[in-house]
């Protein structure tokens, strides 16, 4: 724009030269530093290396029992489920003769596929229902309870049933509440809403699905509670001040920030409900099959390899499901 005078140019060049010299000096200093550090430590460096090796050994020793234990009671069992699914059945168990017939057996079993499909559907319904019904609970605790002490007290109170037996909660759900003579049917009958008790409420697919929500919803509320606690309040206020209505603030500000909690809760509920066994037996009263009860039936009939093959397919379904859930989260973050 404007032409600069020669003196100005001279001044600039001088400044640049000074700046360059400073940079070079700094670079030289930083290049010297490792050497000076080594010089200062002198022979200590070998001692430091020794100490490092000793620390690694201690780390190894601390971890060893835990990892051996996990190897023995987690890794080896899963590996053996896969191995046995390829072995041959005998009258007393199985022998190590490789075969694919176990998978052929279950691939042709209509009941197996029906149960697998229903289990899958039950899990998906549980995840969705826990999310829909659990979110307002976490939201209420975090956003509407101002006093932090009350907030934590209410959270612990809501969380406490997680520490009690799922089996007993399942029992409590079936006979006194959901059965033909249970409290729900009696209440509906008393109010004149129904004339005959609804038998589908107890010991049925429906009762399993409702009860699983009751049993597992805390697995969704907990991660949502922690994620919501970290949501930046000022961004909420900013969004509202800028005229965002409730739904838009929820969709564009709250949901993206709580997505990790949704993913963690979904994975937990999906995996645990797919693998559910005891509760399904109690709540379903023998009328409902899950993959767990199917495998148990095979084991009782001393068909270990077939049971193992069913379990392998369950593991595969779990891996695919977990992968799909995490993909969903990534997609949401990219959008």
């Amino acid at each position, binding site marked *: 724009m404007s032409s600069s005078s020669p003196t100005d140019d001279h001044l600039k060049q001088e400044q640049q030269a000074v700046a360059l010299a400073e940079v070079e000096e700094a670079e030289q200093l930083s290049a010297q530093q490792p050497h000076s550090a080594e010089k200062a430590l002198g022979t200590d460096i070998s001692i430091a290396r020794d100490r490092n090796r000793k620390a690694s050994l201690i780390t*190894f020793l601390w971890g060893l029992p835990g990892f051996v234990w996990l190897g023995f009671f987690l890794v080896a069992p899963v590996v053996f489920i896969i191995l046995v699914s390829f072995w041959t059945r005998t009258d007393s168990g199985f022998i190590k003769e490789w075969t694919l017939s176990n998978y052929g057996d279950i691939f042709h079993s209509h009941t197996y596929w029906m149960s697998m499909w229903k289990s899958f559907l039950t899990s998906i319904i549980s995840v969705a229902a826990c999310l829909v019904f659990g979110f307002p*609970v976490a939201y209420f605790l975090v956003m509407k309870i101002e006093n932090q002490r009350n907030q934590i007290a209410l959270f612990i109170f809501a969380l406490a049933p997680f520490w009690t*037996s799922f089996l007993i909660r399942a029992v*409590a759900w079936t006979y006194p509440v959901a059965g033909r*003579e249970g409290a729900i049917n009696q209440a509906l009958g008393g109010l004149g809403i129904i004339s005959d008790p609804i038998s589908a409420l107890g010991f049925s697919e429906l009762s399993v699905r409702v009860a699983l929500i009751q049993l597992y919803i805390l697995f969704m509320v907990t991660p949502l509670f922690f994620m919501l606690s970290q949501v930046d309040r000022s961004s909420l206020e900013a969004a509202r001040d800028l005229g965002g209505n409730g739904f838009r603030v929820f969709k564009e500000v709250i949901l993206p920030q709580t997505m990790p909690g949704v993913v963690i809760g979904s994975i937990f509920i999906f995996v645990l409900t797919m*693998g559910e066994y*005891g509760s399904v037996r109690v709540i379903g009263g023998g009328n409902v099959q899950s993959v767990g009860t199917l495998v148990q039936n095979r084991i009782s009939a001393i068909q270990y390899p077939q049971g*193992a093959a069913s379990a392998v397919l369950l593991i595969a379904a779990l891996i695919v499901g977990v992968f799909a859930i995490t993909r969903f989260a990534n997609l949401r973050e990219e959008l």
Partner: protein
Amino acid sequence: MGGVRKRIGTWGLATYFIIFLLFIYGPMIIMAVLSFQGRYGGITFPFRGPFQGSWWQSLVDANVPGSKADEISRSAVQSLKLSAAAGAVTSIMAFGLSMAFRRRFRGDGIAFYLIMLALMTPGFLVALGTQLFWKSISWPTAIWPTALGTNTIWGIPFGFLVMLAVWNRYDDHIEEASRDLGANQLTTFREVTLPLVWTGIFGCFLFGFTLTWNDYDRTALLLNGSEAVTLPIQIFAQTQFSAIRPDLYALGSATTGLSLLVILAALAIAMIRMKLAAKSGGPEKAAIRAEETGEVAGFKVGDAPTAAASGD
């Protein structure tokens, strides 16, 4: 107008929260109420009085007709032993693993995923796999030690996460100070590290204990038939009787009550410790004081190496 709308929203959510609590607690409350019926009480409403504890009495008194008191007391003792053992194993393993994770090591990423896998694997699969594994190497499965192992697999990752949270807030400089003052590693660990993190370790124990106390899936497949069963197995067996009686509800309420007591105790201890810490300035402050005076938990740090060598 916005204020009114907001208030309606808050009250709506509060109502919803109460309905949610009823949904979660309702069945257990109904079960507990029905367990206090009279002799002709059934397993559903209406409540058949008088309000009395005879079904509860039948849990412990074998002389009541139809009582399962013997089986129940045997399984309760078995459950207590197994849960205590699982708590101990869980706290040792989870603490050791968390100590290993205080430094980075090769393969720590995979190791972390392995621990999380323990959290994610359905209990039924762990039990099934253990049964197949032990059968392959011709070891018979039983509650001891097989079900102990499968139960801790569920407790260890929870304990591990508790310990990670503890180490997160822990100041490593205290240990450095202790070592600089001449304490060897064993003494530093025993006199400085452990007292600072014992609540976390106790938390691991409680996780291991309650998860095992309430477990069915991880235990049911591993029974050998001759051992005393655990309480959840006993309860399941009673649900399969043709005539279910309110004593099942009493048993369920009693077991649930014990679980809730354990949480209350844990919370009480945590609160007492927090209050004590606030009063005395906390163990961290105590350690810093010890650094200043050169004293760790009663004796001079300078003496520590000899003390550790002569003691134990």
